[in-house]
């Protein structure tokens, strides 16, 4: 429909063709100047020399990347070895974000399916229920989770009151708490795109498969999942990418002790580390990874289309 409309207007014209440039210019300029230029500048900064406790000296240096990848000991004079510390932080972030994505998928897909198969008149209400938390301030949601999970918070008090445990479960300030925070933060991001895909799913396909004696789970695996895959991929990316650079969950729920990439970058600019080139380098590496994931998604999506 859209394509048809476009091609027709291209022939006879609603009169916008000549105005494409001036209409697009504001968005180009704003995003170009305030996002592309800054990111380019950040790339430049990652190759500069750090100033004492924040700031830079305009002098080329590879120190930032050297610090990231190479271990030279406390005094900087030991034989260079591969540096695993920062790679470990990246690995931990990828692992946490990946696990959060998986958990969101395990809970999110059935939820999306359940909603999409409700009576159409009630469906909007279900979507509404998922949308509300999505629109609630992320900081407030994270703070709520911190309050709920703390040692003497409502969750532990309740478990103790019903006699399930004798002493509070130690959840806050652990990797588990960060994981719960990430999962909880981005769960709606998983449900909504999958719901949109399942809603368009033609249930006649399932019916046909069942008629050919496929079991329900076989139908799900062989027919449904491949059909709604774009929705699933979109949901996974919407959970994975923000989880990877998350700052609030590790800071408020992890006690700032278990570092993730977001905390590492933040520490370079607002904390005591004060190493801008290094912070820029870490941000560049994160950005490269995210763009690689997105590019992969675009390729998967175009292959699906063909």
């Amino acid at each position, binding site marked *: 429909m859209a394509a048809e409309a476009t091609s027709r207007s291209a022939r006879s014209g609603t009169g916008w063709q000549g105005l494409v440039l001036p209409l697009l210019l504001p968005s180009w300029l704003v995003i170009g100047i305030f996002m592309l230029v800054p990111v380019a500048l950040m790339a430049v900064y990652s190759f500069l020399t750090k*100033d*004492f*406790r*924040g*700031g830079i000296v305009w002098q080329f240096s590879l120190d930032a990347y050297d610090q990231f990848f190479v271990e030279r000991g*406390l*005094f900087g004079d030991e034989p260079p070895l591969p540096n695993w*510390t*920062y790679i470990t*932080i990246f690995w931990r972030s990828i692992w946490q974000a990946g696990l959060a994505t998986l958990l969101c998928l395990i809970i999110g897909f059935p939820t999306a399916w359940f909603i999409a198969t409700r009576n159409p008149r009630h469906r909007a209400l279900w979507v509404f229920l998922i949308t509300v938390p999505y629109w609630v301030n992320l900081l407030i949601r994270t703070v709520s989770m911190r309050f709920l999970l*703390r*040692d*003497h918070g409502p969750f532990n008090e309740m478990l103790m009151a019903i006699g399930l445990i004798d002493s509070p479960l*130690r959840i*806050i*300030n652990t990797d588990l708490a960060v994981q719960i925070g990430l999962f909880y933060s981005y769960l709606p991001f998983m449900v909504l795109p999958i719901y949109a895909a399942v809603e368009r799913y033609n249930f006649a396909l399932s019916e046909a498969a069942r008629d050919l004696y496929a079991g329900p789970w076989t139908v799900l695996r062989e027919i449904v999942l491949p059909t709604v895959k774009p929705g699933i991929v979109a949901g996974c990316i919407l959970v994975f990418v923000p989880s990877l650079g998350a700052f609030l969950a590790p800071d408020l729920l*992890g*006690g*700032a*002790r278990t*570092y993730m990439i977001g905390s*590492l970058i933040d*520490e370079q*600019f*607002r*904390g*005591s*580390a*004060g190493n801008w080139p290094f912070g820029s380098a870490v941000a560049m590496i994160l950005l490269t990874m995210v763009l690689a994931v997105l590019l992969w998604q675009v390729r998967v999506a175009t292959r699906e289309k063909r």
Partner: protein
Amino acid sequence: MKKLALVFTLLSTPAFAAGELKVYHWFEYMPQELVDKFKAETGINVTIDTYDSNEAMLASLKAGRLGQYDVAVPGDYMVKIMADQGLLDSFTADEMPNFDNIQDEWLDVPFDPGRKHSIPYQWGSTAFSVNRDVYKGDINTLAIIFDPPEELKGRINVLDSQGEVLALASMYMGIPQCTQDRDQLKTLMAMLLEAKANWASFGSDTAKDVLVSGDAAAGMIYNGFSAKARAEGANIEYAYPKEGAVVWMDNVVLLKDAPNRENALKFMNFLLDPKNAAAVTNYAAYTPGVKGTEPFLADEIKNSPENNPPEGATFDFVAACDKETQRLYDTIWTNLKR
């Protein structure tokens, strides 16, 4: 580019009212009533932003906030670092009628000889407090933090403050601050990395809350902050470790490029009034560095166990190392935090 910069500057600079003062201050360190009193006396509007460590304050000033604030309140060693970096403006004693109220022992301090950039705000100590419901043994040793007993393992909050943590760690190891000795630094780092496994969290602004809420059973903390936690119902005791503890003085400094220098001096002068210095003390539970505060101090602050160390307790300031040595300590801290 210049034109662009000008446009932004116009966009982002509010019209300067005659009576403005921008203060960059520690969290929970100045009672609102005192701010109101200053406004009533001078007509100057005070805006306060807060930070939670000396290092974070410095980082933020270097990230473009210098020239936006009039005064800040760095600790002793940070005053020296900032002065060396050229981030401070200076003043003379005649610009401040109450200058003579500074207690003699705080007048000619090593971090600001002759008090050219700073005036005393409050002083106190940094050690740690332990929840006495959880642990009943002897707490007057830094081993509580760096080699904790079973009951406290995994339940310790550590200040997110490089200077103090590394100074206390050095005292625990019995090595001098700002050492360049390779073996000493290596053992220091190894000890800290091992200790970290027993810590639950890093946080300075959270230090009181984690003790009150019970999220932590022991925590590195400032003496006055610990007194406040106790007042809020935590059954905690502030320790005087036998290896020593950190003593510090926070100072109000006049920042370079202060947009309201005159008002900043008025504010500093105001804080040197014994009544006002005492008001800060009664709120934050530390000790003023100003003469004549005695009659205005609340008894429970004056006589608090946190403000009255036992006979024989030892203290030391955090040392400001030279840049090259500082780099080593920065590396240790980075290794510890990540």
